[in-house]
């Protein structure tokens, strides 16, 4: 251990150990509404104005979004000036799904159930998605002491009352059925011997409604959904990105321009309805934060939709997960699931003090950790900056030896690989860029303001308001993935497409030119770029290159 942790860390651990026994079983005070607002406005990155810029063109002109997202939304199309033959159609389907994560796979299964000719296109492999990485669990009010109404209130307060009611109603009312559907597909939930689902709290929940599959919840769900998609023979065009949407002469969405990630070959897919299920944006590293997100989380769907005229909602609100790995550096930004706090681990400063209730909502918790380090100077020094202890040995003290191995095997393994035993040693954390609260604006039938264009999962905005609760995103991808698949496939049966066009791409470029906006980068980005400080590669990437 000594060769992994610094002397300063070891000294601080002694203080954490000294106070541990007195902290067990003590319920820490919750903050008042005023205290929460104060810490958010003083320390949450969403309130840092230099991290944002105002859009000059497009449907959300005049609104602020993170600087990196603005550059991509107002980027240069990858097909500008390229001659594309829209009559040469490589794929002709009813429902085209962009993205192979939880939302895309759920949509595909329901669309297939509806008898529609369905296809998934994904720039990596099916299952390469943030869904795969969701560790903690999925919410659903299915216990006798709970109700969808309570779930609604928890999510609404957590979202600062900005959640779109018509979306939130569907999320909570369709949650129990989502669990039932997954269980019927063969997802192995943690259960008691009598079949009762094992459920815990998440930050901001008032009932224990977090269902889990150890700490592989998303992975277990994703591998079952992937298997089901393959069993059904639904075509998956992998290692192929979408670089523009295609509209028809009446302004309806009518397909997409695809590009093989390896050969660069471009192809046209025509579709009666299109579902954007491209996920989040963590790999844009807003404000220089590390991220817990998948390699492909580059906001492609927002760019595609925006350029075609779809509106964004709450694109200025980002979730920083309170507990990303701060040390060791090899895991920087990786997620330490909220379940660790659900199971009793507290947040402890350098002096061994529990400075807050660890189950406040994510935004409040993240902002409080930043305050403890930046303002109060009580962070633990690491080579990469100050960090806070997450006192994991408490879990074994509260629930018994062996609990971590049983309930958090993924976490335990990750730390073991880098020489840390989290059963006996607390771990160092700091907020990490985790989730895009906003996204493309949709109705309760998951459709945008562009006819035939649907959005599901993290790429859609509104259901979580301005802050999502733990366990509501896995739920979101299942509920709204399924809904998008159902509605898009049903709608496709009545769609008549006109002549295909890409004129919206030129129109957007002209709007930019008229407004005097010079694109800084080609978009969608597709993949991030890292050089890890190699001086020889300093000139390789001109935009979006992040040193981790």
């Amino acid at each position, binding site marked *: 251990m000594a060769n992994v942790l610094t002397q300063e860390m070891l000294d601080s651990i002694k203080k954490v150990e000294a106070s541990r026994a007195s902290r067990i079983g003590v319920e820490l005070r919750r903050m008042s509404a005023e205290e929460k607002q104060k810490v958010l406005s003083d320390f949450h990155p969403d309130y840092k104005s230099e991290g944002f810029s105002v859009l000059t063109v497009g449907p959300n002109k005049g609104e602020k979004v993170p600087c990196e997202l603005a550059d991509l939304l107002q980027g240069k199309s990858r097909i500008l000036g390229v001659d594309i033959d829209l009559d040469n159609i490589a794929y002709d389907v009813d429902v085209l799904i962009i993205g192979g994560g939880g939302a895309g796979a759920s949509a595909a299964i329901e669309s297939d159930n509806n008898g529609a000719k369905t296809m998934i296109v994904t720039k990596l492999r099916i299952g390469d998605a943030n869904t795969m990485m969701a560790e903690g669990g999925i919410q659903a009010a299915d216990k006798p002491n709970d109700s969808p109404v309570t779930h609604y209130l928890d999510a609404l307060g957590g979202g600062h009352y900005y959640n779109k009611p018509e979306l939130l109603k569907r999320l909570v009312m369709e949650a129990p059925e989502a669990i039932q559907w997954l269980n019927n597909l063969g997802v*192995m939930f943690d259960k008691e011997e009598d079949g009762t689902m094992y459920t815990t709290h998440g930050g901001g929940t008032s009932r224990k409604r977090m269902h889990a599959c150890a700490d592989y919840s998303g992975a277990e769900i994703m591998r079952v959904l992937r298997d089901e998609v393959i069993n059904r023979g639904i075509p998956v065009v992998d290692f192929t990105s979408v670089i523009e949407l295609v509209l028809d002469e009446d302004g309806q969405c009518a397909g997409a321009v695809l590009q093989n990630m390896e050969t660069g070959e471009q192809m046209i897919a025509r579709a009666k309805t299109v579902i954007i299920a491209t996920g989040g944006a963590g790999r844009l590293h807003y404000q220089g934060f590390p991220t817990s997100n998948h390699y492909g989380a580059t906001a492609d769907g927002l760019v595609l939709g925006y350029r075609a005229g779809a509106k964004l909602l709450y694109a200025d609100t980002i979730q920083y997960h309170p507990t990303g790995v701060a040390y060791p550096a090899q895991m920087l930004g990786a997620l330490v699931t909220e379940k660790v706090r659900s199971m009793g681990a507290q947040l402890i400063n350098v002096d061994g003090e529990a400075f807050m209730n660890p189950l406040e909502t994510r935004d409040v918790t993240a902002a409080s950790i930043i305050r403890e380090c930046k303002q109060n100077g009580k962070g633990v020094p690491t080579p990469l900056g100050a960090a806070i202890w997450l006192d994991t040995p408490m879990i074994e003290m509260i629930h018994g030896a062996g609990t971590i191995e049983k309930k958090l095997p993924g976490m335990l393994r990750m730390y073991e690989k880098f020489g840390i035993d989290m059963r006996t040693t607390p771990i160092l954390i700091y907020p990490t860029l985790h989730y895009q609260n906003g996204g493309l604006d949709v109705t309760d039938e998951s459709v945008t303001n562009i006819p035939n264009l649907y959005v599901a999962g993290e790429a859609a905005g509104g259901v979580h308001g301005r802050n999502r609760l733990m366990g509501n995103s896995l739920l979101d991808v299942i509920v709204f993935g399924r809904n998008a698949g159902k509605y898009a496939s049903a709608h496709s049966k009545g769609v008549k497409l006109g002549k295909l066009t890409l004129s919206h791409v030129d129109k957007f470029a002209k709007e930019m030119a008229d407004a005097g906006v010079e694109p800084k980068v080609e978009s969608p980005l597709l993949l991030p770029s890292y050089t890890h400080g190699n001086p020889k590669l300093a000139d390789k990437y001109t935009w979006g290159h992040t040193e981790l």
Partner: protein
Amino acid sequence: MEDMVKIYIAGKMYEVPASLTIMNAMEYAGYQHKRGCGCRAGFCGACATIYRIKGETELKFCLACQTKVQENMYIASLPFFPGQKKGYEIEAIKPTETIMMELYPEIYSCIGCNACTKACPQGLNVMQYIAYAQRAEYEKCAEASFDCIACNMCASRCPAQITHSMVSLLARRLNGKYIQPHSDHVDNRVQEIINGEYNQLIETLANKPLEEIKELYNHRDIEK
């Protein structure tokens, strides 16, 4: 100056900082991953990697995102493996004694060499879970294989041509659907919702004035 090590990516030498993971070291060398890179956190199995330290006999198996580089590491990525996946209808099959024989008969050709277990970057006892599958002990197979990330390095080593990740996935789906105890409380709640028992309650809450909703939220009772 940072400590540097020499590594060999598909046989070609690069000097990289010793602190980097294999995945990051490849980027330091100038690669932009298109394959062999996924979640970068040990959950997706995209970055299966085989290496040998020069002069040593033993081949090692790891995930590129979870493993630090070492001096004289010869690295080969395994971004894809042509494993065998059988189609089935989960509603039509049952956890019978014979289902594995029907879908994955090759598991009965296991010669007990344990190469699969040695290749598992998750430290799973792969050969043991295949033995459970052979004996139709699907629950045990499901539990023992639960942390499988389907990197398929086990399959790449198997003289019996087994695709272990697909066998265990079938066992887990059978277990989750048919063997684990049924959750009646989920069915009950679904039925209550279908019966419309919450419609009015949720409408009433949603239509309250914002100040009243805030009061309710700030004073809601939180389960201990």
